[in-house]
C-alpha cells in the first residue's frame, strides 16, 4: 500500500521524548526521524541508546512526554494525544519474536486479521506465509520451529494486516551469522515489496550499510544523524557517528587558513578560522604507495588480512600509528616502508 505521495514521509517523528520510570533503561530524548514508504530505515546505535524505546513509542507501546509522532497527517502521539497501539497499523517484529506459544504458525499469522472474512483471511495468511516461504510449516507450533522459521512467522504475522509501518527490533540477533545473512536479504526484499515504511533496529553496521535505504544513528536518546548510507559513511556529522558505521582515524586539529593539519597532511576545512575540529579519515582514505611515491613516509608495523581487504597498521615518523586498508593483493609486508597520502573523498572535518 503505497502512500499517494511517495515523497511525503509515511511517519514523522519530531523531538520525541520518552521517560521510563524505574530501571527500564535509557529514555528517548528529543529524537527526530522520518520514515518513507517503500524504504527500509536502519536504526543503529550502541545498546542503551534508546532504540527499542523509540520503536516502541512509534508502535504506541510507550507514551511520549514531549514531541510528536504523526503519520499521513494524523497525530499518533503528541501533547495529550496517544493513539492506542491497536489503531496505529504498525507491524512489529519483536526481538524474541513473541510468537504466541499456544497458537500454530497459521493461527499466529491470522491473529491480526480478525476483520477479514474466513476465506479472505485464509488467503491472506497463506500469502503471507508464502512470502516468507513457510507454507510447509503452517501447522507447526512455535516451539516446533527453528529460530529462523520463528523469525519468518513473526515477520509474516506483522505483515499480514498490511501495516502502514513495520518496526523490527533486532530481528536477527538471536540467529547464527549465515542464517542472518540469508534472512536479512529475504526480509528486506519482503519489506520493500510490501511498500510499507520500515524501521529496523540492528547492531550490524555493515549489514545496514549494505541493505538499508536510509540509516539513522542514535546515541543517548537522540538521532544524531540520518540519511543515505553512503552520505553517512563518507560525511559523518561527528566522531561517534563516524565510528558507528566503521573504523575511522580521528585527529584533533584546529582550522587555520581554511585547512586543518593532520599527521597525514593538511586537509581543507570550511569551519571558521581557529575553531577546534576533528579530522575523520576512513581507512580506505589512506592510500598506501611505494616508498618512493609522493607522500608521507611510514613503516608497516602489522598486517592483518580480513577477507578481501587487509588492514595495515603503519607507524609514522612522528611516532603516531594509523590504520589503513588495502586490497589483500597489496604487496607491502610488515617492516616495509611505504608512503601515505589522503583520498579527500574519505576525509571529513567536524567541529569538536
Amino acid at each position: 500500500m503505497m502512500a499517494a505521495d511517495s515523497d511525503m514521509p509515511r511517519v514523522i517523528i519530531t523531538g520525541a521524548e520518552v521517560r521510563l520510570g524505574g530501571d527500564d533503561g535509557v529514555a528517548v530524548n528529543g529524537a527526530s526521524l522520518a520514515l518513507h514508504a517503500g524504504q527500509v530505515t536502519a536504526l543503529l546505535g550502541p545498546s542503551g541508546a534508546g532504540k527499542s524505546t523509540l520503536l516502541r513509542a512509534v508502535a504506541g507501546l510507550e507514551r511520549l512526554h514531549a514531541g510528536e509522532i504523526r503519520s499521513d497527517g494524523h497525530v499518533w502521539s503528541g501533547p495529550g494525544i496517544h493513539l492506542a497501539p491497536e489503531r496505529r497499523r504498525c507491524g512489529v517484529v519483536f526481538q524474541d519474536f513473541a510468537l504466541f506459544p499456544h497458537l500454530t504458525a497459521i493461527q499466529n499469522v491470522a491473529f491480526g486479521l480478525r476483520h477479514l472474512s474466513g476465506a479472505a483471511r485464509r488467503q491472506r495468511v497463506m500469502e503471507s506465509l508464502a512470502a516468507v516461504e513457510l507454507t510447509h510449516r503452517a501447522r507447526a507450533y512455535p516451539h516446533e520451529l527453528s529460530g529462523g522459521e520463528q523469525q519468518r512467522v513473526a515477520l509474516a504475522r506483522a505483515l499480514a494486516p498490511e501495516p502502514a509501518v513495520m518496526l523490527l527490533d533486532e530481528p536477527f540477533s538471536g540467529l547464527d551469522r549465515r542464517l542472518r545473512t540469508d534472512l536479512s536479504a529475504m526480509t528486506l526484499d519482503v519489506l520493500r515489496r510490501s511498500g510499507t515504511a520500515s524501521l529496523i533496529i540492528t547492531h550490524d553496521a555493515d549489514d545496514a550499510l549494505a541493505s538499508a535505504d536510509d540509516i539513522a544513528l542514535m546515541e543517548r536518546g537522540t538521532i544524531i544523524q540520518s540519511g543515505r548510507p553512503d552520505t553517512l559513511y563518507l560525511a559523518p556529522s561527528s566522531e561517534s557517528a563516524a565510528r558507528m558505521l566503521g573504523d575511522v582515524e580521528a585527529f584533533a586539529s584546529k582550522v587555520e587558513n581554511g585547512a586543518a593539519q593532520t599527521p597525514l597532511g593538511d586537509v581543507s576545512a570550511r569551519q571558521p578560522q581557529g575553531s577546534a575540529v576533528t579530522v575523520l579519515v576512513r581507512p580506505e582514505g589512506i592510500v598506501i604507495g611505494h616508498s618512493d611515491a609522493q607522500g608521507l613516509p611510514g613503516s608497516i608495523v602489522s598486517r592483518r588480512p580480513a577477507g578481501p581487504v587487509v588492514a595495515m597498521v603503519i607507524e609514522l615518523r612522528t611516532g603516531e600509528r594509523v590504520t589503513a586498508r588495502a586490497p589483500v593483493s597489496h604487496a607491502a609486508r610488515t617492516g616495509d616502508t611505504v608512503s601515505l597520502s589522503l583520498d579527500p573523498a574519505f576525509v571529513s572535518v567536524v567541529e569538536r
Partner: protein
Amino acid sequence: MAIGDTGILRRRITGRAGLHPVWLAAFAGLLCAAPLLAVAWLAVSGPWTDYLAHIAETRLTEFLVNTAIVGLTAALLAGVTGTGTAWLVTRYVFPGRNIFQWMLALPLAMPAYAAAYGWYDLTQGAGPLGGLVPAVHGAFGAGAIFGLVFYPYVYLLARESFSAQSADAYDAARTLGCSPLQAFARTALPMVRPAVAAGLALVVMETLADFGTVSHLGAPTLTVALMRAWAGEGSIPDAARLAMLLVSISFVIFMAERALRRRARQTSASGHVRAFRRHTLSPVAGLATMIACLLPVLMGLVIPAARLGWRAVSTPAATGLADAAVNSLALAGVSGLLAAAIGLGLAYAIRTQRLAGRASARIASMGYGVPGAVAALGVLIIFGSLQGGLDAGWRSLTGSPFPMVLTGSALALVFAYQARFIAAAIGPAESALSRVTPSLDAAARSLGARPLELVRRVHWPLVSSGVALAGLLVFVEVLKELPATMILRPFNMNTLAVTAHNYAADERLGQAALPAVLLVAAALPAMIWIARRITASERTRDAVPPSDAIPGLAE
C-alpha cells in the same frame, strides 16, 4: 517440560552407584499411593450388595446432577476470581497491592465447612441477612462456598504464570489490533490456561472429595452417596466403589484438559522474557481494583469467620486451644517439608520419562480426589496389615507382638498426609524443576562447579520458590485435614481443625469460631513468607514459570 536430560540427571545424582533415583522416587510414590490402592482392592474384592443398584434406581441422577452443579459452580467462581485477581496484582499498581499479594491466598486456610457454617448461619431465614440475600444452600450455594475458599489455588498458580509471561506477546497483540481487554483475553489468558487448569483441577478434586459442606448445605453429591453407603448401609466395599468412581471422574477431567492442550506450549518459545512494567492506576481505578481484590478475601474468609466469631462472643471459649495450635503447626510443618521433598523427588521422576516414575507420581496424586474419610480408611487398612506382618516377625524373635507404632502415632499421621496431599506438591515442584535445563548444568559444570555445588548454586535457587509453594499448599491442607487426623492421632492429641470440627458438628458455632480463626492465623506467617519469596524471585527474573504441569499428571 524440558526433557532429554535423563542421562545428565542420572549421572549427576547416582554417580557410579547404579541405583537410578527414579526408583527411590517411585518407591515414595507407591508408598503415597498405597492407601488408595488398598481402597481400590477393597472395591474389587469386597462383597457386592444391591446397594449400588438401589442407588441407581432411586437417587443416582440427583447425586450426579448435584456433583456437576457444585463442581462447575466452584470451578467457574474460582477460575474467574483467581485469574482476575492474579492479573490485577501482577499488572497494576494500586493501594495495598503488596498486601493483597499474600492476603488473596488466605481463604485457603479457611476450612470449607467452617465457611459454609458461617455463611449459612448468616443467610438462612433466621439469620441477620435472611431474606435480604439468597440463602447460601443447595448445590449452587455449596459451589459458591468452594469457589470462595479454593480460588487461591488458581490465584497462586495463575499469579506465577502471569509474572513469568513475557510482555512482548501482549504488546504484539496490541500492535495487531487488540484492545487491552482483547489482548488479555487472546494472549495472556490462553498462555495462563495450564496454570489455571492446574489450579482448577485442585479445586474440583477438593470439591468432589468434600462431605461436610455439601451435607450441611443440602447438596447431596456423589460423596454423600458414598458416605451413605458407608454409614447408612454399612457397606464399605460399595463406598470404596463410589470412591473409585470419584477418582475416575478426576482422572477424566485431567485427561480431557491434556487432550485439549495437545502440542501447544504455553511458555515463550525463545528463552527471552521481557518483564511487564506495572501500570499505575488512577486513584478511582485503583480504588475499584482494591475493592475487587478485597471482595474475595472478605467473602471467603472475613465474613464467615466474623459470623462464627460473633457467635463466640456469647459462648465460653474452648479450652486447650494453645496445645491444639502447637500440634497443628508441628504436624503441618513437618508434613509440608516432607511433601516438598517427596514432591520434588517425584517431579524428578516424572522428568526422567521412565514409566515407573511417571506412573507412581500419577497414582500417588490420585489420593487427592477421594473423600478424606476414605483416604483415612485406606491408611487404616495398610497399617493394620503392616502391623500384622511386624507382629508375626517380632513374635518369632521375642515371642511377643511388635509394639503398636503405626496407627495412633504422629508418624502415621504424617504418612497419611503425604498419601492424601502429595498431588498438591508435585505440580509446583514439577514446574519449578522445568527451569533447570541441561544447558544450565553444562554451563555450571564448565565453570568448575562440583555436583553438590551445582545443586546448591544453580538448582536450588531456581527451584526453591516452587518447592516452597509446594510445601505451603500441603502445609495448609494438613492444617485443615480432618478425618485422618481424627482417627490416626495419638491419644489426647488435639488439633485446631479437629477442635473446630467437633464444635461445629455439634452445632456449637460459637466455640468453633476461635479454632477456625486460629487456623487461619497459623497459616498466615507461612503465607506471607511464601509471597515474599515469590515476589523476591520475580525481581531477579527467576519467577516460577507457568505451571506447565497439572499436578502430578503432566507427561
